[in-house]
């Protein structure tokens, strides 16, 4: 084990732990904004109760997301100092803008959102919810802009191994940003809608607070019905983007070895790719499927892995399977949504126990799909840090192995403790159920400037 491998494992562990929380933060903040909007417009108490119930989950989730996110901002310097020094002219503004336009916004208004009920007017509170939601999305934008630049670098010139900026807007809006941003945002919305739907379904199965959880489930399903099919389309956009800009990655995640010269390239539904012999040991192929998917024509040419030097190829089996598992989950959600539409049409949405059970079972799969998606994205970038320009091995910090063994072990222990506690307290909050009786805070003066005592 060397510093490079350990640092990569540590970065993978910390990002894969961290990403679970922003996914729910982004989607749940949006859900809360919708619910609070409905409360302000319809004045129905149930929406206020829904907000106060789901915001508890949101708050626990947000806290873990913040502290695990700080880690990442440090790791660029501690573990990948050579990368940081080489790319900072282009790359560092992304992080600075994320802090300025997103972290401060989220942190600044989260206090009002959680603790401001007795202190500010309802409209200000709603504004705070919207700004926290906006902050979460802006944060995603900058970090995905940074990642997209690493995948499809633009707006730079290389001078003595250092990246110099030539055009900031080209660097920020690099070719893969739109596909990545829309795909990830939709993943967050979709995952969160399914989480709310699944938990609500569980309560409906138990028969507790049916009115409350029917409404929660209804809103979540309306959202999911919009997001899930859209995500299938955005996934296709992402795939074609990879085909155009990262052909090695595409060939690897499809286990496509030979460039098709006579007919269309087949799509392997299942395969056991072998990197030594450069072929699939076993495969179930759909003829012309890959050509159809990425070029939208039966005979479109798709470059095979053998076109690229062995040392420039990512890990094929890992990519092949992580990509397929992600897609499979996307389609499971898609079919569940079609089922939901049929039940709704027949007016049996809340009665079918089989459907509610299915929702409860599939509801955490969005997190898994997000992880598989990020594995596809990041393993597919290898062996590069900056695609085709800087190798991962060139970016690591000049530090002793012991440093990283020390920190990686601590991260594993700490994440186990924090992760287990997180689940424990989320489940505890869910078990307690919604609070349907405590008084609604009286309407406050608009500015919320009066001291508490004077109230």
């Amino acid at each position, binding site marked *: 084990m060397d510093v490079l491998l350990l640092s990569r494992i540590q970065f993978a562990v910390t990002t894969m732990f961290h990403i679970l929380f922003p996914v729910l933060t982004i989607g749940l903040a949006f859900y809360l904004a919708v619910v609070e909007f409905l409360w302000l417009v319809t004045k129905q108490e149930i929406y206020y109760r829904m907000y106060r119930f789901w915001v508890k989950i949101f708050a626990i989730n947000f806290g873990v997301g913040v502290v695990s996110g700080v880690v990442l901002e*440090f790791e660029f310097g501690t573990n990948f100092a050579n990368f940081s020094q080489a790319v*900072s*002219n282009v790359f*560092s*503004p992304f992080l*600075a803008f994320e802090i300025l336009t997103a*972290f401060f916004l989220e942190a600044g208004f989260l*206090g009002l959102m959680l603790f401001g009920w007795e202190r500010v007017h309802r409209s200000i509170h709603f504004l705070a919810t919207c700004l926290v939601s906006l902050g979460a999305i802006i944060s995603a934008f900058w970090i995905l802009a940074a990642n997209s630049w690493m995948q499809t670098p633009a707006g730079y010139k290389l001078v003595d191994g250092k990246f110099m*900026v030539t055009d900031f807007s080209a660097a920020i809006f690099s070719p893969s940003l739109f596909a990545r941003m829309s795909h990830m945002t939709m993943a967050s919305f979709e995952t969160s809608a399914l989480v709310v739907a699944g938990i609500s379904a569980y309560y409906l199965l138990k028969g507790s607070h049916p009115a409350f959880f029917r409404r929660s489930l209804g809103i979540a399903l309306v959202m999911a019905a919009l997001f899930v099919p859209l995500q299938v389309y955005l996934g296709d956009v992402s795939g074609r983007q990879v085909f155009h800009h990262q052909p090695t990655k595409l060939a690897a995640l499809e286990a496509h070895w030979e460039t098709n010269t006579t007919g269309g390239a087949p799509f392997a539904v299942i395969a056991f790719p072998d990197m030594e012999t450069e072929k699939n040991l076993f495969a179930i192929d759909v003829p012309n499927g890959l050509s159809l998917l990425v070029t939208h024509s039966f005979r479109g040419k798709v470059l095979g892995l053998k076109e690229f030097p062995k040392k420039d190829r990512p890990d094929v089996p890992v990519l092949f399977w992580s990509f397929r598992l992600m897609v499979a989950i996307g389609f499971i959600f898609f079919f569940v949504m079609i089922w939901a539409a049929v039940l709704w049409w027949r007016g049996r949405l809340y009665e079918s126990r089989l459907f509610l059970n299915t929702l409860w079972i599939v509801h955490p799969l969005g997190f898994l799909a997000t992880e598989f998606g990020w594995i596809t994205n990041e393993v597919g970038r290898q062996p590069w840090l900056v695609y085709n320009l800087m190798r991962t091995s060139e970016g690591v910090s000049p530090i002793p192995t012991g440093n990283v063994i020390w920190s990686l072990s601590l991260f594993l222990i*700490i994440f186990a403790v924090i992760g287990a506690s997180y689940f424990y307290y989320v489940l505890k909050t869910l078990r307690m159920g919604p609070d349907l009786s405590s008084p609604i805070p009286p309407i406050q003066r608009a500015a919320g400037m009066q001291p508490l005592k004077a109230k």
Partner: protein
Amino acid sequence: MDLVAIWSGLIGLAIILYVVLDGFGLGIGLLFRSTRNEEERDTMMESIAPVWDANQTWLVFGGGGVFVAFPMIYGVVFSALYIPLLTIVFGLIFRGVAFEFRAHAARKDPWNKAFFLGSLVAVIAQGLTLGGVLSGTKVVENRFAGGPFDWLNPFSVTLALALIAGYILLGSAYLIIKTTETVQEWAYARAHRAAWIVLAFQILVTIWTPFHYPSALSNWFSPPRIYFIWIFPLIGLFAFYELIISLKKRREFLPFIFSVVFFFAGYLGLIASIYPYVVPPSITFQQAAAQQETLSFTLWGVIIVLPLVLGYTVYSYMVFRGKVGTEHYY
């Protein structure tokens, strides 16, 4: 004015805001075991619950600012201070999750400990980080070339201990503002004791500095520093005097203000004595700076957004001003 100077100032501002704002937050963490009464602990927690996250963000902004403006220093220092920097992160993780987890816990004790120890670990590691930066870093061809424990020496350990006392001072002064009765009463006592300890550390570090940095002595007594360097101990002594008086008179806001002034007189004096020994001695800020386009592009973002950030930060403090304990957040 040149961009490098502006960025140095911005990073300095971020660090100052972080030390004051998260300083009192971490200080309250350090004071968390001063009482066994869970209700008093609730009060302490609630006094910072709405603001701790925004306060902590200044640290991230300071780090991000170094990445933008001085990428070489970012790379070198973060490699050199790998252990203390990630220790700060470990401490802040436990401190941060303690807010929500403790609120939901039936048994508060594990999260009381996490809050206290997380704060303590983060503060000690911050002191060691500062000591490490001030002790210089070995650099060869723009890369870190030292060992994993170069930051560990008696001087950095002393700074870590001094920082504990300093944050306790800030934390108890903040509690004086936010609380009443018993909590406020022991906060006065803690602030009083911490003030004397901080004074002792400031005298110790002042005497020690010329031994640790031989250049400090000549810096003190030769132009241009001889014209202004003595102002820091004078401000410090004045602030200390006013702090003790305001504590004796049971004033509520003044102790916090004079604590901040007192605290910074010491740190600014230290930095003024040994500058530009900050970071690799062989490298100046100009050499370490990023491309001009990066500096100016990001600065425009800062000019537009930072006033908004400061604006809603002040608004948030206004909304949550007054004493805690009359309502329950959770």
